[in-house]
């Protein structure tokens, strides 16, 4: 019996058993049908396109099960209020949460997980994969898998820092503009317009070629490019809050601006801002990966997904898909974050089906 057959058989037993006792049957029945379909594909013969579809269905089912388990785990572990929120998450969002957790784990504990060092040359250039090297070696003989793990920390960490920079600047600016109004609002608005009118990639290239490709330049450049978007969103959302009677009541009480922003406005703008954070993070992530691919991002020997694609691109000519793995890692994280954002947006907008 192959591993596929064991997975399928176990899932099938589990699903049918669960379908008999559970309330949420739709998902379970669909999954069971999927498994039956895969078994049938296997019966037909397990080659070529059929095999591809079979494995695809298997992957979807396994990730659905994992997401489901992860959600149940979160509901058990988290404090009451949060677990109530999580229990409303659809499977897609649970999958997104699971992936984000995995990325975070790999990012934090990267050095301990990686079998070799980041810049350690251990084999010939483009050596084939073997028992020591899961994904083979890169263009100068470093372990591809280890570099992938180190890349998580570097690429994701950098994108996170840059997005945070954009948010700190944008949110503070937006809140000030909304509460103060008048001239300050006008000035900040026009500055934002000017920045937004410059094509972002060109602006980043410009800054990087003036100041040199250093990590802090990247953070500043991306922070400047994305801050205006956050500014406009915050100003718009806070603008709707500022006209509320409770803000008037607080003003008439004699409260200072800092109190208004912290206690009255901020709690009401957090939800849309968190959703926006997820969305912008994806854009920032892609921009940084793009810059790295162009050679202006993180500099060698630092491992970075964007530059890993470029450095190993020649392998594609030889029908080896290894260079696409970092690209897939980028895609997977982007999709996962979007799944979670969709759910958060849905919750915060108060929409009902």
């Amino acid at each position: 019996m192959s591993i596929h057959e064991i997975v399928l058989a176990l899932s099938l037993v589990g699903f049918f058993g669960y379908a008999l006792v559970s309330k949420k049957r739709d998902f379970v029945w669909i999954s069971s049908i999927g498994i039956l379909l895969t078994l049938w594909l296997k019966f037909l013969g397990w080659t070529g396109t059929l095999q591809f579809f079979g494995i695809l269905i298997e992957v979807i089912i396994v990730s659905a099960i994992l997401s489901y388990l992860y959600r149940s785990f979160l509901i058990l572990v988290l404090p009451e209020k949060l677990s109530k929120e999580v229990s409303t998450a659809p499977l897609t969002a649970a999958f997104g949460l699971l992936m984000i957790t995995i990325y975070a784990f790999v990012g934090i504990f990267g050095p301990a997980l990686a079998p070799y060092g980041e810049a350690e040359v251990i084999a010939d250039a483009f050596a084939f994969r073997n028992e020591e090297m899961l994904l083979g070696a890169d263009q100068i003989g470093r372990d591809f898998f280890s570099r992938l793990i180190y890349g998580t920390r570097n690429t994701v960490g950098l994108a996170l820092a840059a997005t945070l920079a954009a948010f700190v600047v944008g949110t503070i600016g937006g809140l000030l503009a909304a509460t103060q109004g008048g001239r300050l609002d006008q000035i900040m608005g026009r500055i934002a317009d000017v920045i937004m009118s410059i094509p972002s990639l060109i602006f980043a290239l410009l800054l990087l070629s003036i100041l040199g490709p250093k990590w802090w330049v990247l953070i500043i450049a991306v922070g400047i490019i994305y801050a205006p978007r956050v500014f406009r969103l915050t100003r718009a959302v806070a603008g709707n809050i500022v006209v509320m009677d409770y803000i008037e009541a607080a003003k008439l009480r004699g409260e200072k601006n800092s109190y208004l922003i912290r206690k009255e406005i901020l709690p009401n703008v957090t939800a849309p801002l968190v959703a926006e954070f997820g969305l912008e993070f994806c854009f920032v992530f892609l921009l940084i990966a793009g810059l790295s691919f162009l050679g202006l991002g993180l500099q060698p020997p630092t491992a970075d997904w964007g530059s890993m694609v470029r450095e190993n691109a020649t392998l594609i000519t030889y029908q080896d898909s290894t260079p696409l793995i970092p690209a897939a890692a980028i895609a997977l994280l982007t999709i996962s974050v979007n799944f979670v954002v969709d759910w958060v947006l849905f919750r915060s907008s108060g929409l009902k089906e």
Partner: protein
Amino acid sequence: MSSENEIILDIKGLKIDGFTGEQWLPIVKGVNLQLNKGEVLGLIGESGAGKSTIGAASMGFSRDGTRVSGGTINFMGTELTTASESQKRKLWGAKIAYVAQSAAASFNPAHKIIDQHTEAPTHHNLFSKSDSESDAVDLYNRLKLPDPDQIGFRYPHQVSGGQLQRAMTAMAMSCRPDLIIFDEPTTALDVTTQIEVLASIRDIVDQFGTAAIYITHDLAVVAQMADKIKVLLKGEEVEEAPTERMMKSPKEEYTKSLWAVRSHQRKQKTRPENSDAFLSINSIDASYSNGPKVLDAVSFDIYKGTTVAVVGESGSGKSTAARCITGLLPPSTGKILLDGKELPSNFRDRSKDQLRQTQMIYQMADTALNPKVKVKEIIGRPAEFYEGFIGKDLDNRVDELLELIEMDPGEYRDRLPPELSGGQKQRIGIARALAANPSFIICDEITSALDQLVAEGILKLLDRLQNELDLTYMFITHDLATVRAIADEVVVMQNGKVVEQGPKTEMFTPPHHPYTDLLLSSIVEMDPNWLTTVIEKREGTSS
């Protein structure tokens, strides 16, 4: 009114569920309803009674998040619960029409009124466009709209709210339907406008022999409009009877309590003699950013421990006067004296103590309370800010305030505003004002968004607090019934000017200023013949 006893709408055992986000809960629990040709049925109840849901259901329409879970709805031989969408679409507009609460929101602002009017008849192939247009003019004439030949060629924002509501009624009539559903058509209108709309709706329904369901929470209005009345409570029928009998001898306790609300009246306090005014407004003018004057030489005095009601239609400047007093809109000329001392015109220049003394309670409790802040913090903040309460003392003060407004501290301390009912939110608004330990409170239309029974409770609470804490109120309202219930003195405003002021008893006895007279005669009374008499009287004096 109807001679033919042909049943056009027959609802039996109607059950409707609403989705709460987690589960389906019943909103309407088995209601029966029969409507004869040309008959007007008044549906009455508090918010949450399910009256609008039943109204929509009698068209065969389920609102978002609701579903019909039982019963039958038979409209002229068609079973609407099982009818297909296309069947229903043929009926809607042509046989059944709907008039919504807000005409302004129901008209498309991008098209002329008459183009929207002719849409339904041409869609259903009942009239040609030109026939329908001339019919529209005829209807506008019957509904006594000014300039009926031309008014249809204006855009919705170019006519007033009352006119728009009548144009909406004309539109509902455009296909000569057998049934019209009026969902609170006059609730958003001023009292003086309301009368005209009520009268024209009643006449036109009568002329064409159209059956109607009239949904409202206002008893007096329904008494004018309906042939029979059905009282609803929490999705169940309380009782149904012909209007006359229902008004004179209601059977059920709940109906009686509804009827009794309007009779609440407080003893008028007399103005203390030889004492200076507590708050004195001396000929203030005000305008918004160099626009036209919104307040024109407004002066009035408020004495300690009394309630002054400021009355007027929307746009009369009564809320602007409140904004001047609080300092949100500094008046361009004139002075405001509190306890003999002049208040700085801008609230930013006022001292903490001056700010503390004047507190405000808002009309919409939903926007007046921060939805993300807990009750104890909403109430606690002014106590902490002005009086310096901290820690345990602050908790005790919050509990004390909650008890003062008759809410259980243990249960409500840690709630968020969205977890409270409308009346409870308004009580929290009051508690927030009280937490500052003020001497003067401005109440801006605080009961107009509430159900009558709940509003009654709020008024009684304010009355009690006034006696216990020696508070002074300025009560802004357009509802003269409220004025009658709680005011000591009345200030009548029109177009930014004070037209009349004096003690309440004087105001409610003639002679009046003509505008006061108009306002007073516009209070809808419970007598079912009231509307007829008023209209006759007005037409008699004008011709």
